[in-house]
């Protein structure tokens, strides 16, 4: 899809995506808004980090376009603030001249894109589209994970133990020895786990465990 077309509305959710802009320079803020308006992308602009953080973020696919330097809290502050509250909205940073150290920092913190001012409008639109797609996928993934979590929650403690050990790659016999159970009991629990987790195969279950971030190290 390209930005020249109207905003795609298909996908798992049909909510209209939104671009959130934080730019202290009002002139440039207006220019950005004009750009998104022109291409039919819904955009909301803020003058400072505080304004953004006080706003309830819409529950739609979205991305943040942040100037890396802002008065008060900077773009990086917003990034870490959001991360702290578990919001992983994709961030596109706009950088000015000579912001390399900050850029590196932002990259490490998981920014999705960097655009040096002045940028080509197409680059910005492409980045936004990519970010929104990414957010949409993230949202889907999050939804899957939460379904998975619900199923995992329905497991008994023993079943969770066995699932962890299975996905860690242990044989039934090993698991039985580990837990002091008979091999038969392990097999029954394992079958229940596969059923409750709606896993088609062991590989499927392993993937689920990964999504749930299970594992010896994670406990």
């Amino acid at each position, binding site marked *: 899809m390209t930005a020249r077309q109207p905003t795609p509305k298909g996908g798992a959710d049909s909510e209209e995506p939104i671009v959130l802009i934080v730019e202290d320079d009002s002139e440039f803020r207006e*220019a950005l808004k004009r750009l998104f*308006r022109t291409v039919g992308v819904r955009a909301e602009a803020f003058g400072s980090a505080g304004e953004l953080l006080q706003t309830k973020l819409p529950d739609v696919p979205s991305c943040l376009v942040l100037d890396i330097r802002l008065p008060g809290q900077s773009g990086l502050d917003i990034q870490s603030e959001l991360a702290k509250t578990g919001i992983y909205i994709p961030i596109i940073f706009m950088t000015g001249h000579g912001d390399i150290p900050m850029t590196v920092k932002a990259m490490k913190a998981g920014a999705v894109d960097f655009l040096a001012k002045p*940028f080509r*409008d197409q680059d910005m639109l492409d980045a936004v589209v990519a970010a929104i797609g990414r957010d949409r996928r993230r949202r889907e993934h999050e939804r899957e994970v939460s379904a998975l979590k619900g199923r995992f929650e329905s497991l008994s403690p023993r079943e969770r133990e066995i699932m962890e050990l299975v996905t860690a790659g242990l044989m039934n016999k090993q698991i039985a020895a580990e837990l002091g159970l008979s091999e038969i009991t392990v097999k029954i629990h394992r079958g229940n786990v596969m059923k409750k987790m709606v896993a088609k195969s062991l590989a499927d279950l392993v993937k689920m465990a990964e999504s749930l971030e299970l594992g010896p190290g994670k406990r």
Partner: protein
Amino acid sequence: MIPKAFLERESISSPVLLAIAALLATTIFVVDTLSPLGMAVAVLYVIVVLLSTNVLQWRGVLFVSLGCVALTLSSYLLAHGVSYTGAHFVRLLVSLSAIAITAFLALRNQAALTVLSEQARLLDLTHDMIFVRDMHDVITYWNRGAEALYGWHGDEAIGKVAHQLLQTRFPTRLEEITAELFRLGRWEGELTHVKRDGQRLVVESRWALERDERGRPAAVLETNTDITGRKRAEEKLRQAERELRTTIDRIPAMVTSTQPDGTVDFINARWVEQGFSEVQLRSDWTALVHPDDLPEMREMRDKSLPTGGSYEAEVRLRRIDGEYRWFLIRAVGLRDEAGNVVKRYATATDIEDRKRAEASLRRSEALFAQTQRLSHTGSVGFNRSTGGMFWSAESARIFGYDPSIKPTPDLVLERIHPDDLALARRSVELMTLGEYDSDHEYRLLMPDGSLKYVRAVAHAVPEPLEGREVLRALIDVTAAKRAETALREAQADLAHITRVTTLGEFTASIAHEVNQPLAAIVTNGEVCLRLLDHGLRDIEEVREGIGAMISNGRRASEIIRRVRALSKKSEPEMLPLDINDIINETIPLVQWEMLSHRVSHRLELAPTLPAVLGDRVQLQQVLINLVVNSMEAMGSVADRPRELVIRSRQEGTSHVVVAVEDSGVGIDPEKVPHLFDAFFTTKPEGMGMGLSICRSIIENHGGVLRASVNAGPGATFQFTLQSHREVRS
């Protein structure tokens, strides 16, 4: 012999006397002829002769005598006939001899009396009072003069005791006078007599002693001349002299009169009062003149001789106590008809105090001139009533004129630089109007083309000086001005260098500031292009986009202009400014830097402020420096917001204050006094020039820059500038 009183006048009229004489002669003739008496009756003719002498001249007397002789002979012949014997004849002879002798004696006496009476008449002719008194002082002669003056007739006076009658007062004891009279035969002196009418007379009396044949004192002839008038005149003269003398003694000067040969014939009492020895003065007063002063005084005196002997000299005279004091000698010569100086009058006035004052004045004048020379300060005075000007040597030197030239306002204006002429004219005008308080600076354009800077200061004096004089000090500030200019230039250079250095550090910030509008332009442009590509569906959006591009282009250009201004090396240009504008213009230049330092800023600007006179670039530089300083002070702060507040406010009616407050580490109070010193820094990478330059910039603006520690964390730097209106007035 003393003439008898009866000699002076006929006491009995002549015919009666003659009749008596004739009758007597007839009686004697009858008796002699007829009487049988045997005695010489004819002797009685003697009486007739004597009577005749009183009334007849010598011829008459001779005739009477011969008549008497004839009568005697006739009687004899009648009685006795011609007989030449007997007692009768003897008696006849006796009688004849008696008559002859009497006639002879009478005639001789009459001759003597004639002489005497003529002499007495002469005595009567004189106005002098002449009288004769015997040795018992009884008056025996009293002349007409005495009658006229004393008022007593001769009859009244004669026989009286002279000294009682005249109530004589003698100058000395009478005995002494008498002794002298007897010794020398004469005496002269002044006596006082009282006239009949009680009036007192002063007479000059000359006494002559008359002695008889045996040399015994017989009488005293006293000739008196009335000198009362003369005496009164003399007394008046003496009185006048006394008064003059008193006056001369009273005048506050010492007065001397000297003979041409130098003999002192008068000195007044002041000399002695002033502690001079009269004896020394009279013996040789020039000996009292200080040896150093004597030649000059003599020279003056000698020079004055041809022109009347008047001269003046200032000399030191030695007092009796040995102390020398300064005196002003003024001498005037008195000349006779021939033109010779016959007398010289001199006054000596004590001028010691004046001399001392003069010496002290000379000293202070010398000191004053020296001080003026050293400090390049001259003085110029202007007398409002006469319009006259005067100046000190140093003033003349400053203006480049010979000190002997009489100053005029035109001479001064001639030297004033053409550009300052209007100001100088106005100042001269004010001076003539009596405006005392002024402080101006002018440039002088000297004939050699060089420039001089002078500062003219005049201050009001509570009481204007005599003659309404205005005094002003004229300070040649050329050297100071040059130094000041050099310093200002150096400071401007340094300010420029540090400014450029700062700008260098701000490259990123500046680039960001320029980049921002450029980015907006690019984006807006692309949007417009996009809209155009889609067939101008929304022309309003295109218009807005282009408008935004234009305004952002202007914005970028403005930032570049500001940066250029900051980096340019230019003469400070003092213009009326709104300090809030300066703050608002400066913020963008440091904003990016503040963001980098994670410093937030807040402006608290007074809505309206009076304009200040200042150089935009330099004031911006100060602000940038203060902001950077504050940012750096907050670099290590992690536990609290890094906040920078810039405030502006009016203080009083005439001052504007700008404060930059941070929440940084603050300042060690001990270091506050050194904060503004050059090369003082607490930062390892700092040069220590920033604050020092800020301070000199603010001071050049007539303001004050100071630092203080906040009540809370951090420090505040603030500068005060005078409002433009205040500066101008």
